[in-house]
């Protein structure tokens, strides 16, 4: 490459990066530095309690034939760290069709199979505390339920 070509390359490279920054492309692959940037001031701080044993029991699922069962990390062939994140974080944040598709495809179930997973339920506990008195804590129990919708067959 000639020196002139390098100059053009550098100018183009800087222009692409800084345009992405200027236009606030949060997930532009070259400049995405937004992780940990977003924060909202809260009076009540709420955190999901992570019980290091519960996720090893797996997800409680309901099959199309009505049977209930558990799906463990060994069946999904996920390492412990991924299962931990899935159980305590992602399952509560990701859209239901994505998760149900992932589980069923991994386990080899088609929508008409009696073993097809139509529901995933995950109980969880949230610990609350006041921001100005963090020693004062109280907890609440919740359940995340992901239900299969037959409309999703189209994108199966």
């Amino acid at each position, binding site marked *: *490459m000639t*020196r002139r070509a*390098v*100059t053009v*390359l*550098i100018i183009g*490279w*800087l222009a692409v*990066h800084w345009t992405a*920054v200027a236009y*606030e492309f*949060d*997930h532009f*692959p*070259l*400049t*995405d*530095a*937004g*992780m*940990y*940037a*977003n*924060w*909202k*001031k*809260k009076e009540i*701080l709420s*955190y*999901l*309690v*992570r*019980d*290091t044993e519960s996720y090893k029991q797996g997800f409680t699922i309901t099959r199309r034939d009505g049977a209930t069962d558990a799906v463990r990390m*060994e069946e*999904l*062939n*996920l*390492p*412990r*760290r*991924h299962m931990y*994140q*899935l159980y305590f974080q*992602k399952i509560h944040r*990701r859209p239901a069709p*994505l*998760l149900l*598709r*992932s589980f069923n*495809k*991994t386990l*080899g179930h088609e929508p008409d199979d009696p073993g097809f997973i139509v529901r995933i339920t995950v109980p969880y506990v949230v*610990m609350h*505390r006041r*921001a100005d008195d*963090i*020693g004062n*804590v109280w907890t609440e129990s919740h359940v995340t339920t992901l239900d299969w919708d037959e409309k999703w067959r189209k994108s199966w």
Partner: protein
Amino acid sequence: MAQVVVKISEAWNRFWFTGYSAESLGLIRLCFGIGLFFFNLTQLWTLLLIDASGDPFYYVRPVWYFEPFGLEHNFPRLDLVLLATLQLATLSMAFGYRTRLSTLLVIVLVCYLRGVRDSILGEGHHRYHVPFNLLVILAVARSGGGHSVDARRASNTGAPPAVEEWQASWPIMAMQVYTASFYFWSFLAKVRTTGWDWFFDPRRIQDLLLERSLTWGVTAQGEPVFNAMPYWLSQQEELCRLLGVGTLVMEAGFPLILLVKRPLARLAFLAGVAFFHLANLVLAYVSFALLPIAFFVFFDLEKARLQLVAWRQRRARDVVSGSP
């Protein structure tokens, strides 16, 4: 007006095209490459734990560049082979064996394996951004011209093609600019999405520390069952404020390193940033502890090597002559 243009042009050329040799670039490639070997392990180690003989896992959400290729699930056995290949290619790049080809292979494999890791749970991490951009610059530049197997082979078969000062300098400066910019963009992102409260309100740091302190479980009183340090620190308001302001100084002030030429001053600043990443790992489990492998680009390692060689020679002479 013409004088201004000439001055700008001279400053541009001085900034981008002077100051470094092929050996400087080669040593940066070597040190960064060895660091990358370990960095890859810290980022991709979960792939090693997947049962290679087990079934593939269908991704929760594939990364954007997997979709055109129809990549919907991982390939447990193949992924392990590719991870081993990545590590070999990383070492090959570091030691300058078929440097450009090795670097391109590392880029492709990092893209793929990072994609596998992120697609499994539908995540999007930015931990590879700095190393990835450095790799691209090393691939475009003639980074195998010094301290490399390629340079040694070329000199054995005749005169190696010379890498001129400008050819060695621009990639080093581009790597410096990118790394400094990355920290500065982090500062901009915080100001834009949260405002100055991110840095000046101690509750931001307190919130992060409290959330992360629960990673390993929590007692009924709300205390962590493991690693009490983040929980303790979250209750120290002034320290939390100091950490917030320290983050502001580090991220917003990082580009100033480009103007600082004294190696010791650079070293002091970058050691502080490295400590920041280490503290983040211990207190908040943020896996950026090995990002400082990118900081080699801020030093003329060849100059340091020559100074070390000269010092050792002086010392050897002193020993022979019997002087203290």
